[in-house]
């Protein structure tokens, strides 16, 4: 099995894929999330490979259906396949995606070491998405979805989600 770390996406299909968003974080397009691993036209059928963020991510089924509908609107048949390897990492979220997350109120993942310091040692380096203060603390290791942890800002008191680093 060849491991492809770089997604293989036909540029012509990008405008259609750009219309599909994560149903749980609607500001985030699936391309910016890095879950589309391959998108090519073959025998007039769009062959799309997506990878889940977490094994049980309930958004994957919806994303698959949304891809099929987005292509159907352009009169193209799409086939969606779920691939598990290589496993998704938060590094695949694009800079654009990180910006969208922050604007939506979800703190973007830090690096692996910083993430450990935050989640295990209670280091205060996650920036509050409301006021920008780093005087924040973790409230819960698990948040509203599998990919997030719950934080609170000690300055403006705003609770917010932090997108956990997954390597």
């Amino acid at each position, binding site marked *: *099995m060849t491991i492809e770390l770089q997604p293989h996406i036909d540029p012509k299909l990008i405008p259609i894929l750009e219309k599909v968003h994560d149903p749980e974080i609607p500001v985030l397009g699936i391309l910016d999330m890095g879950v589309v691993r391959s998108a090519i036209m073959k025998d007039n059928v769009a062959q799309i490979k997506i990878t*889940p963020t*977490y*094994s*049980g*991510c*309930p958004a994957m089924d919806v994303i698959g259906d949304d891809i099929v509908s987005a292509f159907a609107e352009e009169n193209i048949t799409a086939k969606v396949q779920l691939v*598990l*390897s*290589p*496993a*998704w990492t938060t590094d695949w979220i694009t800079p654009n995606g990180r910006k969208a997350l922050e604007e939506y109120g979800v703190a973007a993942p830090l690096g692996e070491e910083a993430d450990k310091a935050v*989640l*295990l040692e209670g280091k205060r380096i996650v920036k509050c998405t409301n006021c920008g203060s780093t005087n924040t603390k973790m*409230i*819960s*290791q*698990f*948040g*509203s*979805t*599998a990919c997030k942890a*719950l934080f609170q800002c000690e300055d403006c008191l705003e609770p917010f989600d932090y997108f*956990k680093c*997954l*390597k």
Partner: protein
Amino acid sequence: MKNENLVQYIYGIADNALILGQRLSELCGHGPSLETDIAGTNMALDLLGQTRSYYQYVASLVGEGKTEDDIAFLRTERQYKNVLLVEQPNRHFGYVIARQFLFDVFHLLLLQELQRSEDETLAAIAKKGIKEVSYHRRFSSDWIKRLGDGTEESHQKVQEAINDLWRFTDELFHMTENDMIVADEGVGIDVKQLREDYYRIVKEVLEEATLTVPEIKYFQKGGKQGIHGEHMGYLLSDLQYMQRTYPNMKW
């Protein structure tokens, strides 16, 4: 190794995730605090997600139009090959954490080996699962320490839970005849090799939590052969209710 050997082997791994996922799902809305409630259901979601990957693979191996739902919902009790540990009922929060911890330590060791399986699909599922299960183990280990080194009552309750569940730990390292066939092909894992690391890690955490490591000589077994305890039937009647009552229903 025949297809049926591989299918049975996958049940032995996947059914643990399904049944523990079901137990954790029962806690939804009943956790002692919002954070622990969300944590329990998040871990359930990870486990059920892993289960789906395994069962989808089994469905593709079996063919005959079988789906992951048939495998999850339409088997009889004896056809489930989960270990006894994961089917134990929730009782109280300390018990849930103890069961989770005793399983998480094993689960992570297993997946770390399984990611090197000769079977590409199993290796991929394991690699994905490692990221999730590491987080589970961190969560349950933290709570073992917090409860063990907490109040007199939390210490006593979690100690009793560990004492009660200890008799189910030995089964984790049993090899069935089928397991040996699949391990010989480099596809399955020889779980006997994980025993030493398992008890070492468990002991380290228990000691840090000021808990006593139980010393018992008599262990329970049977889950891997499909011989389950009295709780399993009730669990399955909940799990299978919809498919049994409205056959072939879909969301």
